[in-house]
């Protein structure tokens, strides 16, 4: 999570007002979604705020989930079935509680681990221009560019971590499946071959000890 932007030397009251006006929040949660379950999250958003919802399935089954985003009136803003990863940006058209749900109802026995990141609002500028008379000093603009670069580093890091977790989960699944399948196949092979021989032998022997002569 990127650090909350730090402000210049504003008087405390203005600081509070600035915080309230452009409240940028980001919530990211990784949770487990059991099979046949649906989990909804709600967030109150002010009108005109630009929001981004991003989600990714990390483990489980075919690594896909249904996702649905609704506005306070119930109108569906975003709806996708069986998606592995997606990112959706929208601007809130009205005040109210927005709701987004993840559904694993199509799956009968695999539970999924889902990660989502819901970003509300833009980050406030590091050096707000309300009280400024001059342009940003070199030091300040260096700070701003470092801040932006670090934010994108953290963003890439999160994406990479999730993709690696997903790849690792698939690799571990594959490993277990290969092990069990190979052992199973070897056992079946042995059992069937030995069984064949004994079955054939039994065709040619009678219950009584008389030998049968088969015409050549």
């Amino acid at each position: 999570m990127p650090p909350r932007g730090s402000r210049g030397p504003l008087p405390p009251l203005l600081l509070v007002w600035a915080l309230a006006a452009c409240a940028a929040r980001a919530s990211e949660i990784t949770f487990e979604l059991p099979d046949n379950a649906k989990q909804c999250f709600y967030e109150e958003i002010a009108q005109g705020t630009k929001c981004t919802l991003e989600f990714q399935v990390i483990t489980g089954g075919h690594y896909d989930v249904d996702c649905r985003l609704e506005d306070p009136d119930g109108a569906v803003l975003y709806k996708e079935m069986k998606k592995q990863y997606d990112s959706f940006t929208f601007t809130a058209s009205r005040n109210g509680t927005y709701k987004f749900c993840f559904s694993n109802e199509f799956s009968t026995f695999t539970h999924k681990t889902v990660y989502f990141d819901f970003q509300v609002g833009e980050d406030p500028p590091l050096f707000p221009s309300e009280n400024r008379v001059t342009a940003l000093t070199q030091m300040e603009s260096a700070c701003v560019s470092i801040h932006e670069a670090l934010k994108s580093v953290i963003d890439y890091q999160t994406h990479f971590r999730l993709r690696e977790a997903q790849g690792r989960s698939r690799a571990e699944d594959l490993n277990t499946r290969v092990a069990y399948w190979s052992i199973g196949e070897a056992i079946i092979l042995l059992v069937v071959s030995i069984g064949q021989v004994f079955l054939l032998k039994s065709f040619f022997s009678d219950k009584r000890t008389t030998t049968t002569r088969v015409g050549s």
Partner: protein
Amino acid sequence: LALYFHIGEREEKCIIEDIPSDTLVVGNYKVQRWDIHIRDFLESAPGLGMFVTVSSPSGEVLLSKLYGPQAMFSFTSYHTGEHIICFQSNSTRIAVIAGSKLRIHLDIRVGEHFLDESVIQAKDKVNEINVRLEHLIEQIHHVTKEQDYEREREEKFRKTSEETNSNILWWAIAQTLILISVGIWQIKSLRDFFIAKKLV
């Protein structure tokens, strides 16, 4: 505290945090109970609390406490790996009334170092930059820690893939050998059988 979700009264809800060691995690929550009479969530319900349980990747419990309806909790991870943070209300009602649920507001921050805003207020510009730079350095350290952890995980991933690869190879060879040897045994055994039975 903006994001919220609903759970049943006796339900336990867990979230997973995959973090490196020595990372501070701070969580903020607020819980409200649904009241059937006013058909809305109560602003505060007396006696309502939440059990917060944090388990480390090895299974040991790092934190297990009962908090009130609104609280902040924090823990520092000792090991790298998936830590599980679970919430469960302390509601003791056995017969759960239909339609009763809890609303949990949640905010979890991982690895953040908090900027002391009062120090920023100091008029000294150099001091301010100093503090900001120190804050920045702490954040970069956290990024580096995450990257180290990522390297560990990628190594484990690679090992698993290589193990799968050699598993496939050896099992294929083993099965071919079993196939050939069992085939030879079959023919030999049947031939001896038919010779013994004077059919050949």
